[in-house]
């Protein structure tokens, strides 16, 4: 699995990150807590404005769905009640899609989740845990689960999956499944395989994310 992450490369926003996983590359910016517009304001908690922008073309319903899914992953891990009547803007820009955009959004989504997590950490917004996400595919006529498939694997797949887990206790324990979307043609057994293998690689990725964060924290402390 090729995964690289980079924190704090944008100067005008509060937190930023760039994540590259296989052929997919996403850059994410987080600003907040800032003053919301009147229609965004929530009386008791932080409002999230989530934007996903495609590499090519105008944002469409596909990006709206990704925004919705990203929101359902991010909402449980942000300490929303610590910032009443404030706003946090999260913008993900897909730089390289790495998949056929019309059929799939799995790789982009999992990259967006990881990038957002890193950018949130960089911004210093209070979180109650971290999260990590992988995309998976099961090829036709096979039961093997492929982690972070390539585009051609996606195209030959029988089913595709995105999994995001909430990690606590030194990123070694799974607190909850934040999100799973499986589509295609698959059996119950395959699904549990996906969950099992996905959990393993999410935990692995959690440690990778952890070391990225740790090296950033270290570098920002003057020794």
């Amino acid at each position: 699995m090729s995964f690289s992450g980079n924190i704090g490369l944008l100067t005008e926003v509060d937190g930023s990150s760039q994540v590259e996983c296989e052929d997919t590359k996403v850059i994410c910016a987080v600003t907040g807590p800032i003053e919301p517009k009147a229609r965004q304001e929530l009386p008791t908690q932080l409002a999230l404005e989530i934007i996903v922008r495609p590499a090519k073309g105008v944002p469409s319903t596909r990006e709206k769905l990704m925004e919705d899914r990203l929101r359902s992953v991010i909402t449980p891990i942000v300490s929303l009640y610590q910032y009443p009547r404030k706003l946090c803007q999260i913008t993900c820009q897909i730089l390289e899609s790495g998949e056929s955009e019309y059929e799939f959004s799995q790789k982009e989504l999992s990259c967006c989740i990881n990038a957002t997590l890193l950018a949130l950490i960089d911004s210093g917004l209070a979180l109650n845990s971290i999260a990590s996400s992988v995309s998976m595919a099961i090829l036709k006529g096979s039961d093997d689960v492929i982690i972070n498939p390539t585009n051609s694997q996606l195209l030959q797949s029988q089913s595709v999956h995105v999994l995001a887990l909430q990690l606590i206790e030194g990123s070694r324990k799974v607190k909850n499944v934040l999100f799973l979307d499986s589509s295609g043609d698959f059996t119950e057994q395959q699904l549990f395989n996906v969950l099992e293998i996905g959990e393993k690689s999410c935990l692995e990725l959690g440690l990778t994310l952890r070391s990225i964060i740790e090296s950033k924290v270290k570098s920002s402390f003057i020794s």
Partner: protein
Amino acid sequence: MAKDIEISTSEQKFLLEALRQNQRLDGREFDQFRDVEIDFGKEFGDATVTMGNTKVQCRVSCSIAQPYEDRPFEGLFFISTESSPMAGPQFENGNNTGEDEVLCARIIEKAVRRSGALDIEGLCIVAGSKCWAIRADVHFLNCDGGFIDASCIAVMAALMHFRKPDISVFGEQVTVHPVDEREPVPLGILHIPICVTFSFFNPEDTEENIKGESNSEITIIDASLKEELLRDGVLTVTLNKNREVVQVSKAGGLPMDALSLMQCCHKAFGITEQITDLIIEKIKEESKERDKYASILSSENARET
């Protein structure tokens, strides 16, 4: 812009005083353009331009479409410059009606599209029914001034980097050859327009500027974000290497003497030459790199016949 960045009067005064003493905040000379870095992505038509902290990515893509009825021999070409809060919270998502956004979009449009930098007629496939539609999406990633200049470089670099799939036409049947099947073809670039933006500051009072003879206004090239926020006027000159003025835009702002504006144009030409050479060189390097890579690949995957 959604909301403005707040700047104190002290900072404003300080900046002006520094300019009077021939100093810029970042230590640059008045007519010093920031170093331009161009990086290309893995896919065709992906260029990222970095100038100081300013970062702009341009992504070119293509599809097959029907040409406009009144222009059956021409392909389609769109440039989209949508802002998002990524570049800074002052930008609203997808809002194209802000003053600066409109000016930026129009200048890029005039500089690249209307000036015919891309050979539109070369995009025709079957006259009147099929043509290539080329799209350039400009993504503003980080804003520290000079968006117009950086975007223009990014668009041109991405267009030059882009390859569209090869096609063959048998009568009216069009076959699009996948990229791994046949070598994709580059776009026809007719000239390379380069935008250079000048910012004007008035160190005296308004009366002196309008009525006075001193022409003491200060002109700097390639302003940073802070300088942009505090400037009194702006001029964007677009030129190409053929000594053609492609576009000039000074939409109001501080009145400037015609002769000093002419000087700006001449200064811009020098910068245009440098940046044009830089783009061409970068494109050459990149394609060499890619060729090397491709030849390794093709030798491995030689087809059995």
